[in-house]
């Protein structure tokens, strides 16, 4: 056996396999979740009905913030699950929707038709969405003790979210 050829082949092949093995463990389409583990950005936003919600009043409690829009098909798919989870935790964990790139009247009509279980906040400048690193809708953040502990990109997995929220004190 020509050991030199074998060694040369290994020098080329082993690093390639290592790169592939590393890459196979990641989703190339997955968006980065840079805000997870960091302090939740502050916000002071109005609801569809004109009340003001200040994030600082929520700091000691877990809460869920869901960015959505009426024109977003995955948001419509997610809506029943989100309502069910919010209903299940309505006494313990506040949920907030944030309207993303959409009009207040559209949101009111949409929620009247499909039902609502938590207030929706208006973010006309998109500032809060950028502060949370939102790149599309739906995206949902679970905040506990002032820090983002989980970010869902796309429709939530209801069972997983129930397990996570159930574990928060």
């Amino acid at each position, binding site marked *: 056996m020509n050991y030199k050829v074998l060694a040369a082949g290994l020098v080329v092949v082993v690093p390639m396999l290592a790169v592939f093995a590393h890459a196979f463990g990641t989703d190339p389409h997955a968006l*980065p979740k*840079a*805000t997870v583990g960091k302090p939740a950005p*502050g916000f002071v936003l109005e609801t569809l009905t004109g009340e003001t919600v200040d994030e600082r009043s929520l700091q000691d409690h877990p809460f869920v913030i869901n960015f959505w829009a009426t024109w977003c098909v995955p948001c419509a798919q997610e809506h029943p699950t989100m309502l069910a989870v919010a209903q299940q935790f309505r006494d313990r964990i506040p949920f907030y929707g944030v309207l*993303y790139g959409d009009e207040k009247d559209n949101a009111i009509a949409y929620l009247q038709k499909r039902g609502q279980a938590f207030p929706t906040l208006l973010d006309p400048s998109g500032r809060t969405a*950028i502060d949370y690193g939102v790149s599309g809708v739906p995206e949902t953040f679970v905040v506990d003790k002032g820090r983002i502990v989980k970010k869902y990109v796309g429709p939530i997995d209801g069972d997983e979210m129930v397990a996570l929220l159930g574990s928060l004190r």
Partner: protein
Amino acid sequence: MTGLLAVAIALAQYPDGAFVAEKPDQVELGVGAPPFGTPVTDEAQVVDRTMHLAHRLRCPVCQGLSVADSTSEASEGIKARVNELVRAGYTDDQITDYFVDRYGEWILLAPPAARHELLWILPWAGVVTAVGIVFWMLARAKPTAPSSPAAPTVVDDAYRRRVLEELGE
């Protein structure tokens, strides 16, 4: 770099992040550190810097487009945010760091060389290694014997005399 320095100074002053809650003007801008520069009032300068930064940031909902080249809702929001921060006196590094904090380095169209030295060094290291290996192999190769005329046969005097005698000379 200056952005990191500003954050370091802010963290040194307020290690638990309390500076966010204690400085209303910073809550307003949501950056978490004071601007390192002075507010910009020259409209042309604001537009130039906004577009310069927008060309460096990736549109979060597009395929390979910069924020400057995109008209998507998300990109328009980011441009407005950049514009706001430029006006307030934040430096280019601070603004870039603000977006990297929220979206990860993925938001930058070009990875910063200072944080990815290997990306720039490895290709050149590979070329140098390959050239070195070629030279090493050439130096180790055994030279093949050159084709040369046969060495003259040594003929002793007794043999020469006998040959001459037989030839009758």
